[in-house]
């Protein structure tokens, strides 16, 4: 089964091509093509997951191109991690595509939307099954491109096109790091293949310094893609894209690619200097708390969720940083579902209420039953309430943090957990409870609510798979090969702490927003300085940095135009002058050609006669 995993990635490509070549004619039917491709991909993914059930690993590869001694291969590396990611990506993608039928109804570029989503799905799947870093990098850039295309889907809007460019450029900053890391890796190992690199790293022939540099450069790429401080600023702006796209790309899948990259190359981080992982943990934790604080101040429903996403990605990075590989992946998986659910629910709300400002909503639970209840499930899940999946994965991370003995990180993460519960319930209370502010709000069509219901199931229950009370099954399943498995006993202290933080956050939120006992503004205003730090300081720094880069680029460009182009133009000019002279010979006067032909034939005959015959 696993050897056909490439089919999963190829089918969306086919869908993309079909839609692309029939762009004008296919119209709404594009949705069915894309959904069919992704649905088939989901079934295959489940099959692949079943194949790798026992923890088996499959690799397939074939030569892509050969240049001199260099042979580049493409292939698949199907391990439990890849299989899980396949299922996550195809499931979320499928549900988002179905949901989009309702959400994007009447859109005039609908077929293009589905083409881009299909291309994105294909790229993401290819990223997941890649067996070497080069293929991963190509897919990485492809998903970046799709992200750009979809953020700027409504490119008539200035804000959308600027947001698309911002996303592209800022992730590009990280990608430069990733690329340099790749180059460094290849120079030292002469291979891109995961297994080969793993063996070389295990053999210890690479210096710790080199490995640390590679690890940090990779992390730069991951930070760009996964919106880690200070490269997180693009993600809130990316909310200009259609909401289903936000759910798919900017919540569930693509932004997780950074986490995936770090997880895939975790053996490099482990072999590197411990500082590398500490940087990951530090930046992750800082991002988590910073984004959580900013989320509290946001009034746009999608922005709240965007910062929440950044915060949760910080959680995952922090987990990786403290060595919680499986915890990070577990959280990635659960987060993919409940955050997708949240975004789709937000989309449903926006669809029904016609606004994104949470203070223009209110009491929507009465109007939108399905959306409201599923949203509540997801909110409880992300807040970390006991049997729901968010609880188990967050608890896992906290346990790992505690186990690593890094109590600063643990503290920060606990505060973040409290803030998470607070801002999520703030959102929930403002939007779904209280007085009805918009009488025209209505429930979304079934094509949108059913994906919500379906997503609610994993959002609520998936965590049980990794529950230490139920035997830590998920952890065992995706644990790194060779790494001895730590039988994590249930850490009741951590469970208690995290539950306490979550309940405190919910309670605080209930007081402020549910009952409105205290004026919310005083609290929120006191937090808005963090927002300033974010919007003004980081953006400005990045802008200045870009300006410096631009200056260097301009200098180089001037060198290029003056000197390099001067040479090229000079050569071209000389040739051009000769050509102009010679092209006069091509007068269009055919008998002149004939005469030249006769003369040339004569000379040739004479030459042949004297050389060969004589």
């Amino acid at each position, binding site marked *: 089964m696993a050897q056909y995993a490439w089919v999963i990635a190829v089918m969306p490509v086919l869908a993309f091509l079909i839609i692309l070549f029939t762009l004008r004619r296919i119209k709404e039917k594009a949705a069915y093509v894309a959904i069919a491709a992704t649905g088939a991909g989901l079934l295959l993914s489940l099959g692949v997951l079943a194949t790798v059930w026992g923890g088996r690993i499959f690799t397939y590869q074939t030569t892509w191109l050969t240049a001199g001694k260099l042979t580049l291969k493409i292939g698949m590396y199907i391990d439990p991690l890849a299989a899980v990611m396949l299922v996550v990506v195809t499931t979320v993608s499928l549900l988002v595509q179905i949901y989009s039928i309702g959400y994007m109804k009447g859109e005039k570029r609908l077929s293009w939307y589905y083409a881009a989503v299909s291309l994105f799905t294909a790229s993401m799947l290819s990223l997941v099954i890649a067996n070497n870093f080069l293929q991963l990098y190509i897919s990485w850039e492809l998903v970046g491109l799709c992200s750009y295309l979809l953020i700027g889907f409504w490119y008539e809007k200035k804000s959308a096109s600027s947001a698309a460019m911002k996303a592209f450029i800022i992730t590009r900053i990280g990608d430069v790091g990733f690329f340099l890391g790749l180059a460094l890796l290849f120079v030292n190992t002469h291979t891109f293949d995961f297994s080969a690199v793993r063996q070389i790293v295990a053999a210890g022939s690479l210096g710790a310094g080199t490995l640390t540099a590679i690890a940090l450069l990779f992390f730069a790429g991951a930070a760009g893609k996964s919106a880690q401080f200070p490269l997180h600023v693009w993600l809130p702006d990316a909310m200009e894209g259609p909401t289903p796209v936000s759910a798919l790309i900017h919540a569930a899948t693509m932004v997780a690619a950074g986490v995936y990259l770090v997880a895939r190359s975790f053996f490099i981080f482990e072999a590197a200097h411990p500082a590398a992982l500490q940087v990951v943990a530090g930046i992750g934790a800082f991002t988590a708390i910073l984004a959580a604080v900013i989320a509290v101040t946001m009034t746009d429903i999608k922005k709240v969720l965007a910062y929440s996403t950044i915060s949760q990605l910080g959680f995952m990075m922090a987990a990786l940083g403290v060595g919680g590989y499986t915890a990070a992946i577990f959280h990635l998986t659960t987060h993919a579902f409940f955050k997708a659910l949240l975004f789709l629910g937000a989309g449903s709300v926006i669809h029904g209420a016609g606004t994104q400002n949470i203070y223009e909503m209110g009491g929507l639970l009465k109007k939108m039953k399905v959306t409201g209840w599923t949203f509540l499930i997801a909110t409880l899940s992300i807040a970390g309430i006991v049997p729901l999946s968010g609880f188990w994965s967050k608890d896992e991370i906290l346990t790992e943090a505690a186990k690593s003995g890094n109590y600063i990180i643990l503290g920060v993460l606990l505060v973040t957990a409290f803030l998470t519960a607070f801002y999520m319930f703030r959102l929930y209370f403002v939007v779904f409870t209280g007085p009805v502010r918009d009488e025209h709000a209505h429930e979304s069509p079934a094509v949108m609510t059913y994906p919500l219901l379906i997503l609610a199931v994993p959002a609520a229950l998936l965590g049980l798979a990794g529950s230490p009370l139920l035997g830590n099954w998920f952890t065992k399943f995706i644990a790194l090969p060779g790494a001895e498995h730590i039988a994590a006993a249930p850490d009741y202290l951590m469970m208690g702490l995290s539950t306490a933080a979550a309940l405190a956050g919910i309670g605080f939120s209930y007081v402020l927003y549910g009952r409105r006992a205290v004026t919310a503004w005083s609290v929120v205003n006191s937090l808005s300085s963090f927002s300033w730090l974010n919007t003004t300081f980081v953006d400005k720094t990045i802008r200045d940095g870009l300006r410096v880069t631009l200056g260097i680029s301009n200098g180089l460009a001037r060198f290029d135009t003056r000197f390099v182009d001067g040479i090229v133009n000079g050569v071209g000019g000389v040739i051009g002058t000769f050509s102009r002279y010679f092209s006069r010979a091509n007068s269009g*006067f055919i*008998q*002149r050609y004939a*005469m030249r032909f*006769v*003369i040339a034939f*004569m000379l040739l*005959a*004479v030459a042949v*006669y004297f050389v060969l015959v004589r």
Partner: protein
Amino acid sequence: MSGQLLAFWALSFVILSGALYIVMTKNIMHAVFMHLLTMSMIAAVYGLLHADFMAAMQVLIYAGAVTAMVVFALMLTKSQSRPDGAGIAVDNQQRGASFLTAAGFLAVVIYVLVPQKWAVHEAAPVVKSDVAAMGAIIFKSYILPFEVISVILLAALIGVIVLARKED
């Protein structure tokens, strides 16, 4: 000097002067008819080579077909508006260069060809061409080229019709 040689000299004289007339004259219609005369004399040369069939074929094609086509083309394109053909420049500006080129070509060819020794067959050139034998050769050894040439002629026929008909 045998009768054959005499005939050869006479025919060569007519052919070469006819050809020269074709490439020199200002009167295109004269050139066309002189062309027919030249071709007929070439047919006579074929007769001298005992190839009666080819001689008849040459006459048939040039008298029956080519001259007709050329005359029709002349009439359809106002190449020759008056019978005396005056007032139309029929040579281009590279006349002198062409003459030199042709002369050089002739020099090269003569220089190369004249000293050659040819393996002349002992029965030659008095063997009479047998039409039946020739037919047998064409339809046995050369059947493929024969069919190909028939396809080429068909293609040319269709092509000429497509090209020359007025679109309406």
